[in-house]
């Protein structure tokens, strides 16, 4: 027997396998614990003075923005402050932040949607502070700063703009406002995203409800839209693809995504409904319990400065996120997009934050399914 002969060949060395096995396990385990126990910060325990920033321990940014990698790299290069990035979807960032609870590893959270950010503030997770660079904000930008100053906008995109395929304009012409989409002539032509998967889509369904007069009116509108054979896709990308390929004619999506697709050569046009589109600010909040608040404040200040804005506007033009409306004075987009000439509706943030879970579940049960 093969194994048996192996065995008798080195039968006397009983110590060797024992050593190999136990060393291997012990090494692995100690390495894990040892690596874990290296101090990650120099200021633990007592509350750090809010305005000091240790450049080497730096800060950690949790972000869902397309330009976050460019921004954190540039910030680190310009200031020498170590900046670590976790780039993930907004949903995963929320899960991470919630699971970390009172022992947070994030210093700055940066994603689209003030309703979502407000819910973090409502849970007491955000630092209330006054950024000196808030004075750089335009009046539109200032309108997104909450009264307790717990987060700041870095730019605005809108939802509710209607993408259409320029090659297949229907005989009935183009719709001018949301209610026009209920026209039987547009049966089977309209598409949008699922709020369960697409971050900008809850603000969309909340905003349309607000424009139409309230949650009930919103639900009624989407039920009628469904009766007109609305089609739901997961996110901006598949919805736009369906419009690009002509499978659908209209897509209610984030306007920055439409501009990105137009830049990529897709045959798309954009309609801003007359009753307005919903402003969706990219917002930055600082962890209330973080250990690098000084660095975090410097980062937010930097994003609100022309240096930070310049990195964002010069980001990859095929990335939709680059097509934001600046909210810092003196900043103009490098890419071409319409920045004015349409009303921007701002959400009643506390109200829509309060009904988010219920409204989304209703939408899933009644519209998506």
């Amino acid at each position, binding site marked *: 027997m093969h194994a*048996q002969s192996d065995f008798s060949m080195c039968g006397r060395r009983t110590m060797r396998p024992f050593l190999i*096995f136990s060393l291997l396990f012990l090494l692995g385990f100690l390495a*894990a614990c040892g690596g*874990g126990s290296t101090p990650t910060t120099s200021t633990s325990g007592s509350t750090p003075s809010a305005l000091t920033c240790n450049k080497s321990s730096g800060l950690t940014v949790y972000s869902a923005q397309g330009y976050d990698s460019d921004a954190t790299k540039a910030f680190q290069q310009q200031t020498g402050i170590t900046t670590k990035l976790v780039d993930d979807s907004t949903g995963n960032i*929320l899960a991470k932040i919630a699971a970390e609870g009172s022992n947070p590893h994030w210093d700055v959270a940066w994603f689209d949607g003030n309703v979502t950010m407000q819910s973090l503030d409502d849970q007491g997770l955000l630092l209330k502070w006054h950024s000196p660079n808030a004075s750089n904000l335009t009046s539109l930008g200032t309108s997104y700063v909450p009264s307790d100053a717990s987060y700041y906008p870095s730019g605005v995109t809108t939802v509710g703009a209607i993408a259409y395929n320029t090659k297949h304009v229907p005989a009935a012409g183009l719709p001018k406002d949301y209610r026009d989409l209920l026209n039987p002539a547009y049966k089977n032509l309209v598409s949008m995203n699922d709020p369960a998967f697409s971050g900008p889509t809850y603000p969309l369904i909340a905003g349309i409800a607000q424009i139409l007069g309230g949650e009930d009116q919103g639900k009624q509108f989407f039920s009628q839209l469904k009766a007109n054979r609305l*089609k739901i896709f997961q996110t901006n990308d*598949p919805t736009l693809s369906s419009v690009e390929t002509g*499978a659908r004619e209209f897509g209610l999506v984030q306007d920055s995504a439409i501009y990105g697709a137009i830049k990529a050569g897709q045959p798309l046009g954009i309609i801003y409904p007359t009753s307005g589109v919903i402003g969706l600010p990219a917002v930055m909040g600082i962890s209330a319990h973080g250990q690098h608040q000084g660095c975090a404040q410097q980062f937010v200040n930097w994003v609100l400065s022309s240096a930070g804005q310049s990195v964002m506007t010069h980001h990859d033009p095929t990335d939709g996120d680059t097509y934001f409306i600046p909210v810092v004075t003196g900043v103009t987009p490098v890419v071409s997009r319409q920045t004015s000439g349409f009303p921007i509706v701002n959400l009643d943030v506390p109200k829509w934050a309060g009904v988010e879970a219920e409204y989304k579940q209703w939408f899933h049960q009644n519209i998506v399914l």
Partner: protein
Amino acid sequence: MVPPKHRPVEPVQARSTASWLAVPSLSFQRLRRRLGQALVIGIPLLLLLVFVVYPLAAIILQSVFPSLYASSPSLLPSLDALHQVFTNPINYSALLNSLWLSGITALLAALVGTFLAILARRTDLPLRRIMDTLVWMVFFTPSFLIGEAWSLVFIRGGIPDQSLHFSDSLLTWFFSPVGVIFILSLKTFPYVYISVCAALRWLGSEFEDAARIAGARTWRSWVSINAPLLLPAILAAALIALAEALSDFGTAATIAQNSNVTLVTYQIYTAINTAPVNFSLAAALSLLLFLAITLALLVQAGTLRTRSFQVISGRNRPARSISLGGWKWPATALCGLVFLLALVIPLGMCLLLSLLHAFGLGITPANWTLDNYQAVLTQGSDDLAALQRTVLLAVTTATVVTLVGLPIAFIIRRTTLPGRGLLSMFTLVTIAVPGIILACGYIFAWNAPYLQYVGIGNNGVQFYGTIWLLLAAYIGGSLPYATRLSIGGLDQIGSSLLETARVQGANLLQLLVRIIGPILRSNLASIWLLVFTGSMFELAASELLYPPGQPTMPVRITGLFNDFKLGPGMALSMLNVGIVLLALILFRAVPLLISQVIQRRTRSKTPYVSTHQTTEQELRVATGRL
């Protein structure tokens, strides 16, 4: 096929292990032996406890103790979440939907896997020699790629649609639970294939011959005699397929989003991904999945209790190959179709997309490009670092898990330690829990405030946010698979062999390292490869747990997909797939070379294989056949 209760060797085995554990005197020799046993049994159990049980408990317990990890932690129990789960009728229908969807998936996987296994092992099918390799390739292709690729194949206005013009009914048919079941069964049939191949090794032709003498035709003897005899092997693997389908979220979300079907995993996902995040609800919903797995285990046990599946008598006759005759080509075509659907089309679609500028423009001469590859390669340092990190993590995970899985399997199968049955069930439950739940459990468990007071250094245990936690999560995530695979291999080793070793004075450690390890080396190598490739494409844990600034390869791939950069995303996927294929080829080539060298030196040595084989994961015995 011998179910456990038919194994006469079990008591002997139990006694012998018990005597290993009972140490009468305390001489140095015995002390060392005892220490060795403690290490061999204790360390793997400790790893399982620390890396799987503790994190899973950290989140599941929140279904009853919602404030366990709140800013002011308390053990105040609350039944709110459970109440919410069990009073909402949507959750019942979600549980039902999850059950039937994964049930049909497991059934289909069982049919396809069994069919292919029989064709490969018992017929003169032309494809049979490369079947194993093809099945392994299916195993290795990540399911998120298969799902993404198939949805792009069937998208209205997509490249295939431009020339084939799919009918509406076909598309409606595909973007429904039908499509989900289709993709999930393509992904899981290899479990059944491997399991049944192993079982077929012990199924001689004597029952068949008896049936033939009684006048049955070949196909009849297979359907009514051999197929039922293979049932334990089929059920064992179908359970894994079921658990995988139960925990699936991505495929259902991509394919069947608009169909009138809510799954448990969807409910879990929305509880975790919507502000304010509700972990206690997600944990309570996960209990539904536990319920589903328990139901499935009961069904399995009930089925196996009805009769004996014993075929191994010590006088087994060699199996005969069936000549397919006129059926040869239809059967080949059918096999080809399976691999066309599971491998060629999805991978081909990915490859195509990685070579195109814009998906919407279709296949035109101007649309071909290598830019995507150039883009991801010149992006250079970031991707290269991510790749190195991922390979390192995958190699370490595979090594640790392979070494640790064997002792745990040994505990489950060959000792009388209390709770081993629970341990066995636990491994299956872990497979059925969605990755995102386990990942959140890791955050709670290893970022808990109380860890400040534990351990070494100023800050106590700071595990979360380091690469070590990701490694731990990979290990924890793949340990259940490795354990179940090792059980299969272990069941093939006769107790008499182990008894002999013990009589000659081998201790537990020597037994594992000197005897079981070498015999199962090809089995272990396969487990290593399986875990390695699985880790190379691990997404759920990576996304939530990767250390800030240090993403892994799959995180970068989905990052590209999320930024709507389909081409570069596919290019990066293809590079990753290429690396895994390279590993597969190396793994096939190296043992082959080694075994040739060994064979040249010693002709007559054949590895001992027992005549005892049990139900459960005979499995990947066949894994050894890689």
